[in-house]
């Protein structure tokens, strides 16, 4: 495949794959409660994930190892179990949130409660993984994910004031509700820096047999793709800031989010919202379920590969076949999907040091990266974001749980 097509596909993956239940819900809450004030959090989260995705791609291209495979080999089983458990738990919570997003899109479209849609949605996701190939999952969902550009169209239609948006890019203390402000900020970072994004990216690079020749493609793909993805999340925040914030509406249930598109785009906006939510969350759920299987299979050396027939990688297939119905049951149990989504994002932020530090250590090990090891800037920046996000989550999470 020509290098240009690779880059185009990579950027599409970034755009289509970025917005999902977490980034949409946290952007809607941020915009509705604090106007443009929290745009900087999306920028920080996007920059951080762009750097992490680039690192995961570089690790796969240079060392031919996926992330879990390299972590188990480099740190030994004892240490490896800690990030494995953390990423597995967080990924499962986010998987449930994504299925929640899918079922709510179906409820908006049909009026039938989202709890009934949980098992059918999980079955549809499972069927695509069962019959599909890796390329189909990665490229297909991101291609469809372009529908999330509807938020950019809606934001432009609402004529946001450019100066206000730019001012929002500068991190600043909140004007009111400090605890709430920092909780949403950390949930935004957690939504952008979801571990499954860079774990899945490293598995993709290995399945596509990347080598040193792909380093530039990797940098462009990660940088441009994720930045475009970030702008879609900013667009969602801007819509909330212009539609919900002035009306004094604070988002605390999914039912309030469609107004982001119905205000500027009327009925077309409604169906675009349903399509965007459904496709974005469906694509994310596919990737997370697959990544959970990669994580465990690569960590223990089992046969893995979405291009293999399920029976030829039985334990690998069993992982997503068990994880999907369990995640669906969480939604079917009637837990509030929005609260579950925002909590999962905060938990992701909380677990960042455990999921990111092992990758950083690997990226500084010449045995894996030869002369392509990390510069100190990316080391320090990513570590700072991870530790700060974790500390803020540690403080903000109990306040949010006990408070509300």
């Amino acid at each position, binding site marked *: 495949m020509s290098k240009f097509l690779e880059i185009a596909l990579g950027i599409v993956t970034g755009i289509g794959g970025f917005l999902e239940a977490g980034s949409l819900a946290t952007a809607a809450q941020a915009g509705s409660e604090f106007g443009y004030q929290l745009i900087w959090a999306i920028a920080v989260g996007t920059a951080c994930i762009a750097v992490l995705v680039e690192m995961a791609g570089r690790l796969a291209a240079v*060392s*031919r*190892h996926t992330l879990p*495979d390299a972590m*188990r*080999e480099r740190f*030994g*089983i*004892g240490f*490896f*179990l800690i990030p494995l458990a953390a990423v597995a738990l967080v990924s499962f919570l986010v998987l449930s949130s994504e299925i929640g997003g899918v079922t709510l899109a179906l409820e908006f479209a049909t009026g039938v409660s989202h709890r009934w849609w949980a098992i059918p949605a999980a079955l549809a996701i499972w069927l695509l993984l*069962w*019959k599909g190939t890796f390329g189909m999952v990665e490229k297909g969902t991101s291609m469809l994910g372009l529908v999330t550009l509807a938020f950019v169209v809606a934001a432009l239609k609402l004529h946001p004031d450019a100066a206000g948006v730019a001012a929002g890019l500068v991190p600043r203390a909140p004007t009111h509700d400090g605890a709430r402000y920092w909780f949403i900020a950390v949930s935004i970072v957690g939504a952008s820096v979801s571990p499954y994004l860079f774990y899945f990216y490293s598995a993709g690079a290995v399945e596509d047999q990347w080598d040193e020749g792909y380093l530039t493609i990797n940098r462009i793909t990660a940088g441009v793709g994720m930045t475009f993805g970030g702008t879609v999340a900013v667009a969602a925040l801007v819509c909330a800031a212009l539609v919900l914030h002035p009306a004094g509406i604070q988002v605390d249930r999914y039912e309030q989010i469609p107004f982001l598109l119905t205000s500027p785009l009327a009925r077309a906006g409604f169906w675009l919202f349903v399509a965007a939510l459904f496709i974005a969350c469906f694509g994310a759920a596919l990737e997370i379920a697959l990544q959970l299987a990669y994580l465990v299979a690569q960590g*223990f*050396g*089992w*046969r*893995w590969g979405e291009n293999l*027939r*399920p*029976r030829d990688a*039985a*334990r690998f*297939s*069993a992982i997503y*076949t068990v994880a999907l119905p369990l995640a669906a049951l969480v939604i079917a149990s009637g837990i509030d999907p929005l609260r579950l989504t925002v909590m999962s994002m905060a938990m992701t932020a909380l677990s960042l040091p455990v999921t990111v530090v092992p990758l950083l250590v690997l990226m500084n090990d010449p045995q894996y990266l030869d002369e392509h090891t990390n510069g100190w800037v990316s080391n320090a920046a990513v570590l700072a974001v991870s530790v700060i996000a974790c500390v803020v989550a540690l403080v903000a999470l109990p306040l949010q749980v006990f408070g509300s």
Partner: protein
Amino acid sequence: MLIGRDIMDQQVVDARGRLMGKVDGVVLELHEGEAAHLAGIVIGGTTLLWRLHRGLARWAERKLGGEGRITYVPWSKVGKVGVDIKVDVEAPRTPAFRWEHWVRDHFIGRIPGA
């Protein structure tokens, strides 16, 4: 070559390129007075537990009455050590694939389209 760094936890690939697990353990053969030799690698059974928690490993071995079904690959059958370790063994005929086959035959294989 350092055994812990270069061999332990490495991906093991069988003669036909099938992934058959990670190196969970390594056997050293002792000789009187002289240095020891690397005898072979071990996959599966209770081997992994010994690196997690010795008490847990002893308890498991008491429960199983032994080390469980481990796969021992003598060093003579180990080929190139690179990104992973290639061994001249047929994985399906070793205990390393026992769970893989159990899951295939009792769970995944029964689902249509597997």
